[in-house]
């Protein structure tokens, strides 16, 4: 199996199949990150594609000694932040309009119907709270809980000091807790 470094070198020398392999390798991880950031399927796919367009453009500047995944996520986060700033009002309206149709659904065949309903309800509530959460708290939470990045890793992706990551995580969790209490 080819390493990320080999694939990146291949992409730099214009080999299309290496680019495709790289996209496929990070498809699920990156898509899920985008999906949790945007809380919307269409925006997530759009963000995913835009991230790769930028990655291809910036690949020459990428230092191959650094691990690829944090760099990729950093690009994704920066794009999300820029996109979010640019389209804040449209985005808010769109996510509000599409909130009911875009919930992540549980697909666990082992669970009973009642359990599935309960979990979907919990996730619906959580997703509503995540939508209301100030955006600076969302990315650290996603990275911490899903990607299992270390504090250092999250700090690298977000481009902030470790202390800021810790405080945003704590504040984010507190805010989320309060929001969930209010909504229940």
């Amino acid at each position: 199996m080819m390493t990320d470094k080999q694939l990146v070198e291949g992409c730099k020398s214009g080999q299309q199949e290496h680019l495709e392999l790289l996209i496929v390798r990070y498809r699920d991880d990156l898509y899920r990150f985008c999906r949790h950031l945007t809380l919307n399927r269409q925006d997530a796919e759009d963000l995913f594609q835009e991230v790769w367009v930028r990655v291809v453009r910036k690949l020459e500047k990428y230092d191959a000694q650094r691990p690829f995944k944090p760099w990729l996520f950093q690009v994704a986060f920066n794009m999300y932040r820029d996109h979010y700033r640019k389209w804040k009002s449209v985005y808010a309206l769109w996510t509000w309009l599409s909130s009911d149709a875009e919930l992540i659904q549980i697909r666990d065949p082992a669970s009973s119907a009642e359990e599935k309903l309960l979990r979907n309800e919990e996730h619906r509530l959580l997703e509503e709270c995540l939508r209301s959460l100030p955006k600076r708290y969302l990315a650290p939470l996603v990275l911490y809980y899903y990607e299992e990045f270390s504090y250092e890793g999250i700090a690298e992706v977000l481009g902030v000091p470790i202390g800021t990551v810790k405080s945003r995580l704590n504040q984010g969790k507190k805010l989320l807790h309060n929001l969930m209490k209010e909504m229940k």
Partner: protein
Amino acid sequence: MKEPRDEDQLLTEYFNISVTPSPELVSNTIQRIHGRGRIRMLAGLMSLQWLILVLSGICFLAGPAALQWKISMGLLFILLPMIAAALVMYRTMGSGGGSYESSPNR
């Protein structure tokens, strides 16, 4: 009914649910990358064309030609790149397959 679970556990579970992208995501992404590359190349070529036309126009207008010729050629120097740009934009975005705007994900 089960009791509401611990929020930490809920967050871990929520962020670890498998979310499946559309099957065309990778192919659409590659199309978009190529489409964007083409647009950048066209934009570069158009800028070069603009520069050459403007320089040619300046040289012509500074020369000894009659005023009506200068006016008509001046208009042409402005109109030609605009028509070309409109055509290129129409070709690239209006009907071009695989371009950014024609992606099914838009």
